[in-house]
């Protein structure tokens, strides 16, 4: 699980935000495992869930406030 969490964090460092399913595809992991890992990462405060029409995950601390957002 720790290895998977590290991969997720590494992937999210390179994007603004992403759906867990896309993360699972991109890093070649099982979607349910990615969901679990994301839950743990959120509880640890390393990632945050983001809702813009639909839900995404993003690295903690990134500012997605409308008007301030700068998509990468």
């Amino acid at each position: 699980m720790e290895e998977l969490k590290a991969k997720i964090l590494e992937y999210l460092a390179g994007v603004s935000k992403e759906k867990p399913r896309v993360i699972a595809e991109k890093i070649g992991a099982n979607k349910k495992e990615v969901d679990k890992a994301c839950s743990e990462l959120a509880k640890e405060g390393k990632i945050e869930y983001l809702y813009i029409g639909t839900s995404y995950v993003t690295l903690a601390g990134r500012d997605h406030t409308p008007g301030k957002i700068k998509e990468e």
Partner: protein
Amino acid sequence: MTEAKKTPLLDELEKGPWPSFVTEIKKAAANSPSAQDLLGQLELSYEDKRGHWKHGGLVGVMGYGGGVIGRYSDIPEQFPNVEMFHTIRLNQPSGWYYNTKALRQICDLWEKYGSGLTNLHGSTGDLVLLGTRTENLQPFFDEVSNLEEHPFDLGGSGSNLRTPSCCAGPARCEFALIDTTDLCHDLTNEFQDYLHRPMWPYKSKIKISGCPNDCVASIARSDFSIQGTWRDDIKIDQEAVRAYVAEGFDIQGLVIDKCPTKCMSWDGNELTIDNANCTRCMHCINKMCKALRPGDDRGATILIGGKAPILQGAMMGWVIIPFMKLEPPYTELKEFLEKAWEWWDENGKTRERIGELILRLGMRNFLRAVGLEPVPQMVNAPRANPFFFWWPEETVQD
């Protein structure tokens, strides 16, 4: 506080005999700067004929992805007190039963951390608290979830399971055929993680009605509509039927002729029901509740696919399981929900609800995935169009 402005357009909404949300916001504005700016921004929206709210941003509480909806004004320089005006959803008690202490606790906290404006209840069913700033979210949640006597959890938002909701159920209604409040509470606890952390293509809703009257409109408002029903015969008290008629009740015009399947007849002395052709619409029982009662073999019909418009337009749920016994711990229902969500999660596109996915990939694919056999009740519109297409290998070719 921003200077109070005139609101001639909003004032129009106070006219007439009905309660007005404008009146209530004006009352709140006496003590709440954000309520005052809310009135100002709303008036401007009516003048401009467009909303001035931006949707989104990163707001929430630690570890959660649901329960908080971010709202920002696009004209914060004019209305600084609604620069941030986030909404919090609290998970309501099943059937919306509160005591006054619980409500007072929430209102006190909401005056401390928010605008003081509430909406009981939002369309999802939650207790909705309107308008707070980002920095107030975590302290509010920490307090409301640790209230000594009546702690509250956050409700659902985003690509989550939305807060399950149900009708008032057996506590108040003679027609409740299942214990809606217990089922709602049980499902909420069972799937709590799905409520709090988004992991699906889009939202998913469960709404529960105790009988086919469907007072909470679960068929139109939820992906999974659960409606209490029965599968044995309607119980008839013939003496009570005759008493209705003796008192001048037009049984032919009000009941017999309005039966959607014409399965009832009245010979002047006795009421007969062809129960095999009854669709359990409840009309006759509603009209003659002293004479007719639902049967004793009770459970629920499960419908799938109801939703408001986005991708495919508004859809009503259709029957997927005509009858399921529903008793704690509701294992069969939970297994069905898990299988359906798993198939949807694997195959759904972003913002595609499960009903839309079934339309796109076909009912037979869905049924195979969840292990259900096709039955005649699975039609898109009753007596109109067949909804299930057989697999080629299962058909006999001439």
